[in-house]
């Protein structure tokens, strides 16, 4: 544990990637496989079953430190990180505190058994741990306990460091570390053994992620960078859930981008996948489609996370996997082939499937002779219920992670509205103790009604200035939320707008963010609810074309 906490501190102290990777490499070189396995697992963001509720933890810390519960909350509000707040509040361990056990013992002896224990026994374990740990060690322990371990390193950095340590190709290691593996020393030794021959029955490939296109292809610089439109495969970009469908031997597995198996939530896709030849892996987007038009993303979320889906929800929220890439063909890894060749093989595969009546569809190419024509088509994207285009370079292999220049998402220009700051809440992490999380409203007669929350889009300087303004204009406190006088107007940008019965305004914005501050506008000049509702897409029945008609 001591060595792991030192790693945590080293990672926390730097923002430089090279230093982070170096710290990780030093760590992997210093610890036995039993610890390295667990460190890899938690640093990659894999969660263990939640061991203790944060509510219980707060109460136990309150008692142990003689702090009233409300003061624990106030402290949390100022610190912005619960694990840290609780560590700062606890009285320091005694001078003869026993040394902390190694990481794998902390995980296996203390944390893993907790879900099986009752409250009293859980508390006993947690208090035993506190006696062994100093302040920073407690912070790390609390993070392990509550299952949210984020320290500014992701899968990619951990994989890079571990691959360097093990003398392996990072791509091979990334594949091996995708999907479930047991963090025990034997498994770990095999994972990082360059010569090991691993069966990969159900394991997905690392997802290739697209970058937002910053360039404008209609401008000379963008045109130069991107080349002719014929270098690209262009598809509509749908708002669904990225997924990988694996059909190997007798097995069918559907993986989400979060590397979770979601097969049980989509039985119709599992069934249809059996029509695919064994040794096939598809990459694509899961969509909810009613009568051949896309349903709101929220509908799709109703399907997720379910262990079983009943006939009603199967009927209410029909889904489709829109396939756009073929990663494994006839049992062979096809990722090194150029995009165009993979596309050809994918089309051939679909020619052997029934055209209708199955929840698998091919993502069609959008034909356009030049960027101008494509840009014109893009203007109609919102009416089609899509977010814009995906651009995929025809000659590029399927890379891993966020490789630049291979896949671009060219989204439609966002919608905007001018809204008034209504509520503010303090942020977390680097923004702890500053008011950075805002709720905005528009006018409905003389009242402001909230239309959306936004956290991003301001510079650090703008955040500090807004924070200062908020502190001077607080009207009321509701827990951590502060209502403020209507005084600041912001231009909000958002990708789309939907009807919503869960919001007082009757609308929900998708991906709202702050485009800019509008100090030139008085609050009374902000938009009205009527104008916001006018942005809603046409009502049911006159909907856009569905994903199958692209």
């Amino acid at each position, binding site marked *: 544990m001591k060595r792991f906490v030192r790693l945590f501190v080293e990672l926390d102290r730097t923002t430089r990637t090279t230093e982070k990777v170096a710290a990780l490499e030093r760590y992997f070189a210093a610890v036995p496989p039993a610890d390295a396995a667990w460190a890899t697992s938690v640093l990659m963001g894999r969660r263990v079953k939640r061991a203790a509720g944060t509510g219980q933890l707060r109460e136990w810390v309150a008692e142990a*430190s003689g702090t*009233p519960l409300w*003061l624990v909350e106030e*402290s949390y509000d100022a*610190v*912005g990180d619960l694990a840290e*707040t609780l560590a700062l509040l606890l009285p320091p361990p005694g001078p003869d505190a026993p040394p902390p056990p190694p990481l794998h013992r902390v995980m296996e002896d203390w944390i893993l058994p907790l879900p099986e224990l009752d409250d009293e026994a859980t508390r006993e374990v947690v208090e035993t741990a506190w006696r062994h740990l100093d302040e920073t060690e407690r912070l790390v322990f609390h993070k392990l306990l509550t299952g949210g371990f984020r320290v500014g390193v992701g899968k990619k950095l951990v994989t890079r460091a571990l691959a360097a340590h093990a003398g392996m190709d990072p791509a091979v290691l990334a594949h091996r570390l995708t999907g479930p593996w047991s963090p025990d020393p034997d498994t770990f030794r095999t994972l990082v053994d360059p010569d090991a021959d691993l069966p990969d029955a159900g394991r997905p490939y690392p997802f290739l992620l697209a970058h937002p296109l910053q360039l404008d292809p209609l401008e000379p610089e963008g045109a130069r960078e991107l080349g002719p439109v014929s270098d690209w495969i262009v598809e509509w970009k749908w708002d669904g859930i990225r997924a990988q469908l694996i059909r190997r031997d007798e097995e069918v597995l559907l993986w989400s981008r979060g590397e979770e198996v979601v097969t049980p939530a989509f039985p119709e896709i599992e069934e249809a996948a059996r029509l695919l030849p064994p040794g096939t892996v598809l990459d694509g987007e899961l969509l909810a489609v009613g009568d051949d038009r896309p349903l709101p993303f929220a509908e799709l979320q109703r399907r997720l996370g379910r262990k079983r889906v009943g006939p009603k929800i199967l009927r209410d929220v029909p889904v489709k996997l829109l396939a756009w890439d073929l990663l494994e063909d006839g049992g062979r890894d096809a990722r090194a082939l150029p995009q165009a060749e993979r596309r050809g093989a994918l089309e051939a595969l679909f020619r052997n499937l029934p055209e209708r009546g199955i929840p698998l569809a091919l993502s069609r190419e959008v034909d356009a002779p030049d960027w101008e024509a494509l840009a014109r088509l893009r203007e109609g994207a919102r009416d089609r219920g899509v977010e814009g285009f995906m651009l995929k370079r025809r000659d590029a292999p399927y890379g891993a992670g966020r490789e630049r220049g291979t896949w671009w998402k060219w989204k439609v220009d966002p919608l905007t509205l001018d809204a008034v700051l209504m509520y503010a809440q303090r942020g977390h992490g680097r*923004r702890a103790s500053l008011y950075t999380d805002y709720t905005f409203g528009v006018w409905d007669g003389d009242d402001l009604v909230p239309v959306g929350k936004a956290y991003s889009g301001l510079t650090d300087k703008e955040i500090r200035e807004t924070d200062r303004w908020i502190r*001077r204009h607080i009207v009321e406190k509701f827990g951590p939320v502060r209502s403020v006088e209507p005084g600041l107007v912001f231009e909000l940008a958002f990708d789309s707008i939907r009807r919503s019965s869960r919001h007082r305004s009757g609308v929900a914005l998708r991906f709202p963010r702050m485009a800019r501050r509008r100090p030139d506008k008085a609050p009374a000049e902000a938009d009205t609810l009527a104008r916001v509702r006018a942005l809603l897409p046409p009502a049911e029945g006159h909907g856009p074309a569905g994903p199958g008609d692209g």
Partner: protein
Amino acid sequence: MPSPPPTIRPTDLVVPDAGGLFVPAADLWIDPRRPVPRALVTHGHADHARSGSEHYLAAASGAEILRLRLGREISLQTLEFGEVLQVGDARISLHPAGHVLGSAQVRIEVGGDVTVVTGDYKRQPDPSAEPFELVPCRTLVSECTFGLPVYRWPDPSGVMEEVLRWWEENREAGRTSILCGYAFGKAQRLLASLTPLLGDDPPAPILVHGAVERLLPPYRQAGIHFPPTDKAGVEEARAHKGRALVIAPPSAAGTPWTRKFGPVSVGFASGWMRVRGMRRRRAGDRGFVLSDHVDWDGLMDTVEETGAERVLLTHGAATAAVRFLREERGLAAVELPREDR
């Protein structure tokens, strides 16, 4: 004049008003925010000592610094710590606050009733300031910059050892160590704390920013010992970069000024460094938890040990501390109006 909040009583010896903390019996203001006829200044920091008042009263050991900051020509009367001055109906004396050199608490006695205004204070050891003196009173007006229980200061000697280790690591990596702390107070505390650890023979040169250097003479006059230092000029930087420890004000961090030192590691010494989020936002490489203000435990101890029945809290997040004193300690506690209102 706005009427005071209902929880402040007319019989109070100090009354907050638009000018600051007014002492009616002595007709003077403590650390006034605007020019007044008579100003009692607890210490020389800019949010406490402002220019423009007709007459100033301050502790003798802080006088030189006050003149440096407000000008030689101010009308200044000084008091030794413990010396009593009758002003109107009030007996006024100053007592060390331990915040910085010459920082004072104000004891006000009128007809047997005693109020103490702490000014900024701390209860931890600091070789560059007179140690805090506990002054019993019925009413305590205390600062509350760090009014949450997450703010508990570690032992300063341990923090200084961390500083030395950081400096050593930086020397090994060929980086200049830039340690940031307020130019008046924190910077001198850092230097004076290094004296017993390094003696007259630091492992590499210690350079000081101009804003810090200006304030070293009054400390030397007061008998505070510093390790040998040099100014952080272009030549010194060229000669000692990669090895030197540079003491600088926080405003110097991230400015072109630091470029002459080559690769650097920037550390901040402040109570705020107790919280990770603040450390990361500071964009420094290291945070050292070293504060010249009282921490939560120190505040609670002071309230208890002075025997105060009423506690008025000012500066910072006083709301939580006020509620805590009322509900958990059963004391009459009040938050004084914030400065920016």
